[in-house]
């Protein structure tokens, strides 16, 4: 299969982008536009906004992202093995088992360290 097989997806992406931009512009054209100071203030349930909108965020979100990177690589590594599994047979199964075992040890470590706790 050549790269040409992916070309129709490019067509669909272009159509989707055009639709997105048209919808984005359509209410600029048809809707009224009467800005005022109060209307353009950040929404905080009707109160005067206090402080900046974007503040410091909990470090837990970064931790989740780091853990995700490790396991996402693993998931992607599963895919080529899944396609070629019937050819690799028992050998491939054992090799993949060892790989998964090492990963599971890391997973148990981070679980025990409390990296998965969210409090």
């Amino acid at each position, binding site marked *: 299969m050549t790269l040409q097989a*992916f070309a129709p997806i490019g*067509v*669909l992406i272009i159509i989707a982008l055009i639709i997105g931009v048209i919808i984005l512009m359509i*209410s600029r054209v048809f809707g009224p536009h009467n800005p005022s100071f109060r209307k353009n203030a950040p*929404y905080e349930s009707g109160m005067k906004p206090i402080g900046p909108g974007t503040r410091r965020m909990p470090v837990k979100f970064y931790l989740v*992202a780091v853990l995700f990177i490790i396991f996402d690589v693993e998931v*992607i590594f599963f*895919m080529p093995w*899944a396609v070629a599994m019937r050819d690799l047979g028992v050998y491939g199964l054992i090799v993949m088992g060892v790989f998964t075992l090492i990963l599971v040890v890391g997973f148990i470590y981070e679980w025990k360290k409390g990296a998965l706790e969210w409090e």
Partner: protein
Amino acid sequence: MRIPRFVWIIGGLILLAAVLVGGLLVTISLVTTMFDPNAIDPGAVIKCSTSSGCSTIYPIIYSLILVVVILTGFAYTTLWERKLLAWIQHRVGPNRTGPAGLLQPLADAIKLIFKEDVIPDQVDKVVYYLAPVLKVVPVLIIVAVIPFGPDILVPWFDGNWYQVPLAVADINVGVLYLLGVTSLATYGMVLAGWGSNNKYATIGGLRASAQMISYELSLGLAMAVPVIIAGSMSLGDIVDAQRNIWQWFVFQNPLAAGILVLTLFAEVSRAPFDLTEAEQELTAGYMTEYSGMKFAMFMMAEYVGMIAVSVIAVSMFFGGYHIIPVDNVPILGPLFLILKVFIALSLFIWVRATLPRIRYDRLMALGWKVLLPLSLVAVAWTSIAVVLGEETQSSTAYGIVSLIFFVVIVVGGFLFLRGENQDADTAQDPVDLMNDPVVTGEPRSIGWVLLNLIGGLIAVPFLMVKALLTLLEGLGSAGGEAPTSDELAIEPVEPAGD
């Protein structure tokens, strides 16, 4: 001479009926020829991939039709959601605009078009405009790799019949494409939250990012299971491997199917995983500062995403366009798929109407501590069963291994849940040592010994499962012991003297 009014009416009705019936007959004859591969001389049919003109024009036409179908589907999904929610809550639902409220989506669209497009002062303009497009485009292109039916025949103006596939591009890395594009929608949510420069929006965007990436791991592992069984990453091969109902992958690995459905609920952030736009705490989450058609774009992305993930789930585990094999009557393919997607969408709405929102720490615990280990077990299940079945060249071995895994998982889950519900004070009584034959040395018959031997051998796997579960439970509570009921009890306040 004056013709009575009822003659006009009856005549008009007869004419209308004739036109309708005639049109219907012509359409049926055309469509049955189009979708029936045996109706035309096979020699005269041109395959689309071999003709340069067809392979240029066909993707454009098919993409346009697909987008129109999906957007119409989106409009009527919103109506069906409101109707079904209303019926579940014993209300009527929208019924004013058009017959039975059928024009409600149109009215909503017109209203939103003529609404003011408020752009708050504090936003980052580029990111603020980019985010809705980034959310809509991925969900519109997800279904590109999924076949909606077998190849059909269509006539074209040059007098030839062309055999065309009912997919934009059934590429050979389809599952990887699905994984990549479903996670792209996260960018739209995070950038919307960040670019709005608003507290609610920022929190919603952060929650969205953590939730998406946590559930994407289990999603990827659950998607590996159909790849293993079918031996291909092309969605066409995966669907064709589940031609009959008993071949559906949901019956070969129900665990992976359950995980896939749960993670897809989380990926489109629908109830009970709609933490990103929890109305009661975050107003509207990441789309708080959006109004007019930009708000409509986020709603559109949500509902188109629902349709897209329904198509994914149906194609991966629930037989795709097959209920009975549709090779001889290809027109049934899209109809079956639409029927299954409709059932899946109704499930989404039903769940929203019945389940309360899950707490955020429990959401993360479910994703990392429950679904991730379970999806590893699901992959192990299918891979061991497939490899053993391949080595012994028998489907019996495949079935037996699958059955063993199924029983072990059901029993393990049962034991685990029972252990969860057991209180410390209702623990079992200690063994009565004074009457135990091991301690007293009382002789027993050979039958008793044999029975115990067999029983002991059977018990070993169960004990291993139990030990594993105890280990996991201990690991789960390693961060700190739960407070006992004594510690939590409120000390009675001594009444002040006199």
